[in-house]
């Protein structure tokens, strides 16, 4: 949301991807967020992920709600249609958009206020419906645009910039997403690009509801001692369960990982998620184990990150509804209108 146009000059030696686009082709307008904001790092990770996936920018639709995080879709993928919906209601708008054209890739960007407070109902129901989407929560545990109120993901006992203590329980969106039946659940940290980019790539290529909770410290209102979402706190308490590589079908699959530490998961679209285990006992395909693992570590004040759960057999809302393969928005009059003869039959049945 800026008045300043970004220069369109490209450096001639910028590398291009398989469809001939450079990283610049995936960028958007200049960010108006505070310098050092974690959200900008996430935007950069989205740009990298889409570039590396060779995604055609116009075949992705980016949707968001209201808040600092929800402003960011203006700052990446300038050739994609974007939709800044009303506060907390991105999931329903994304659901409708997805129903209209199942051939697009849907990226939903939201914040902890947008998702865990005003929009928790829509978050919950879009996930349990299995909408095919990459839903990123840019989670800073604070209301930034209105200057520093606690959010529903603020941990109990954490302190605001003014020193007030949060007395309400925090919502763990990852645990919630698991319970709701999300088929791809990950958590990461805006400051950990190496972990975040592959997680986003995996989510964008996943064939169902993918939820990423990305802790993204607010430099203005939630990056002080006493906050559990500050850069320092997260770095000290981050406990990664795995490291992820996304291997697209056309890339030769490397086999240089030691057996026992690597697990390949093939997704519907043929991409392979290669999980490099860090926590020896972590199995990312067991929903119940994942939930238990997260809670055990949370009790110790540790923030578990990585790909926490994946169902490689994921289905999505269209599978469940039995919708035609043709996007609904491409159907014409003859596909949709039964015609005068059918109407005459209906009339006859109403006499």
């Amino acid at each position, binding site marked *: 949301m800026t008045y300043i146009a970004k220069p369109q000059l490209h450096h001639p030696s910028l590398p291009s991807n398989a469809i001939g686009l450079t990283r610049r082709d995936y960028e958007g307008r200049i960010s108006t967020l505070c310098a050092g904001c974690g959200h900008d790092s996430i935007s950069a990770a989205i740009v990298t992920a889409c570039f590396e996936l060779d995604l055609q920018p116009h075949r992705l639709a980016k949707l968001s709600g209201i808040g600092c995080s929800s402003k960011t879709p203006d700052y990446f993928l300038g050739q994609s249609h*974007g939709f800044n919906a009303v506060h907390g209601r991105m999931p329903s708008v994304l659901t*409708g958009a997805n129903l209209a054209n199942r051939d697009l890739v849907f990226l939903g960007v939201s914040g902890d206020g947008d998702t865990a407070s005003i929009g928790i*109902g829509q978050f919950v129901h879009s996930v349990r419906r299995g909408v095919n989407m990459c839903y990123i929560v840019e989670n800073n545990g604070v209301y930034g645009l209105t200057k520093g109120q606690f959010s529903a993901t603020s941990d109990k006992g954490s302190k605001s910039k003014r020193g007030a203590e949060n007395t309400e329980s925090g919502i763990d969106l990852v645990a919630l997403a698991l319970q709701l039946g999300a088929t791809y659940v990950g958590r990461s940290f805006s400051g950990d690009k190496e972990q975040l980019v592959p997680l986003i790539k995996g989510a964008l290529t996943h064939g169902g509801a993918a939820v990423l909770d990305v802790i993204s410290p607010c430099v203005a209102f939630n990056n002080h001692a006493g906050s559990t979402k500050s850069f320092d706190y997260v770095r000290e308490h981050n406990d990664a369960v795995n490291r992820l590589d996304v291997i697209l079908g056309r890339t030769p699959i490397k086999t240089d990982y030691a057996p026992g530490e690597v697990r390949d998961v093939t997704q519907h679209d043929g991409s392979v998620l290669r999980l490099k285990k860090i926590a020896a006992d972590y199995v990312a395909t067991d929903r119940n184990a994942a939930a238990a693992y997260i809670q055990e570590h949370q009790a110790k004040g540790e923030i578990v990150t990585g790909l926490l759960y994946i169902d490689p057999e994921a289905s999505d809302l269209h599978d469940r509804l039995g919708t035609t393969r043709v996007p*609904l928005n491409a159907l014409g009059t003859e596909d949709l209108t039964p015609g005068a003869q059918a109407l005459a039959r209906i009339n006859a049945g*109403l006499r």
Partner: protein
Amino acid sequence: MPDQNLTQPHMAQIVATNDFVVKFANVNGSGSASANGLFAKAVIRMGVPVGARNIFPSNIQGLPTWYEVRVNGEGHVGRRGGVDLAVALNPQTWDDDLAGLVPGGYLFYDSTKPMPPSKFRDDITVIGVPLTAICNTAYKIPRERQLFKNIAYVGALSHLIGIDPDIVETLLAEEFASKAKLIDANVRAFHLGRDWAKQNLEPIGLQLKHADGVGNRIFVDGNRAAALGAVYGGATVCAWYPITPSTSIAEGFMEYCEEFRTDPDGSKRYAIIQAEDEIASIGIVNGAAWNGARAFTCTSGPGISLMNEFIGLSYYAEIPAVIFDVQRGGPSTGMPTRTQQADLLLAAYASHGDTKHVLLIPGDPGECFTMGALAFDLADRLQTTVFVMLDLDIGMQEWLVEPFVWDDNRQLDRGKVITAEDLEAGKPFGRYRDVDGDGVPFRTYPGTHPTKGAYFTRGSSHNSMAVYSERGADYTEGMQRLLKKFATAAELVPPPVIQPAARPTRIGVLYFGSTAPAMHEALVTLERRGRHLDALRVRGFPFSQEVFEFIAAHDEIFVAEQNRDAQMRSLLMIEGNIDASKLTSIRHYDGTPVTARFLIDAISEKMNANAPEKETLK
């Protein structure tokens, strides 16, 4: 058998052929609805027009419910007011049902336990039929005793008022075509009641005669018609949340889509989501329409209240949406199973800030179909929310209307959409630019072109290129264009239906929606009494120019509506800058559909009060 001969011999009885009102008083959940429906359909099959209204509580079992059937050979199928024959089968409402009878009317009741004469009136005819005793003798299973009692009273009535038994048998055969066993059982029960009546009772003064007053008209409720309109209008996405009285629109859409939109391999050319609430419903509709699908939701007043924020987004970001609002009694939870026209102002100006919305106002289920389909063309053409304003009386009651018509040459009007070919050919695109001078901009669907045509949709202020802007000039330019677009809408909504009086007059009446049939009957009666009124039925908002011309051409306009606050009158005053003293309000808002007699009395009374010379004849 108890003595049923309770007729007061000295009293005048109503004598009428093909023109009377029957009201059934039942307990809900007792299975009476299908018997009552059978009664109404049998009258229609005899060629006599019927208006039938199910008056039911917000409850599943045990509370009073009524079914009022207006029989009128001349085709007046609105409520008349008053009851000629009460079929009083609910002791809870006995006193009210008795009181509702006009003098000379008839009371039909289950005389298994005869009522003492003190429970009757001396100006009516009482007809006792021991329904319970008859059915207890004939049936052993309690459920059968109850269910067949309903068909048995239809049988008894068939003798009393002259319903053709062959027609009833045909209807039962059609109804249970797939369950032959039930045909025989129901026919038997029908004759059980009929035979008893034949042996014990004389036909009454209210009689049915075969006529030719129905033609090829169909008997259908507005919700079903609206659902069919959505199918023909090309809707592919329906998101809804159950709420009385709109639920059967979504259910009807589901049913028709299964029939007409399923591919041979079982895949569906539609998607229906029962959402978690009305906010999600309208969010899904906005998302789908933004992405180029035709989408709708159906709801009632409380749902509209919840949807307000999205309706404002649709207005300002210019996203098509169709909302069927089946109005019920408000405010708050109000009277969920009663009818009102009380969401007009809510819908017309929904959401914060300066907003105005397009309303289509059907006057019967036939128009629910045509406007249901038209709404999607208008939503795409105008890129905004279009409301279709039904009410419970139109939505949930079956009306006798002309058959649905569709022109096979008609193509869905997708409005101003720029395609990849247009962009490739160099057609300039600015999302909110007024290229044609009608206030309606062009849009692109997401995913159209790799490098051209993308834009950012937002509810925050934006310039004509869809870029965020807080500049006052950008903002006012956009808001002024939206006004221009609204003026364009006034030319696209269905024009009013104007019916001039038999003689020139300076007095007019303006009405809309489900008031139509009662008003038509009232106008005929008033005309007979020498009260000449030009009539205009509003069918859309923003108002067409014809509406204001009609008002300008008269000295006084009666505005008839079914809400307390004269909302249509307010809309006319606000949008047409009309002098309040010119618009005389007539309001009926107790939750029951307005009757012809109410309108006749209200209009006559006001005309008398305004001095007889005001009724100037030129």
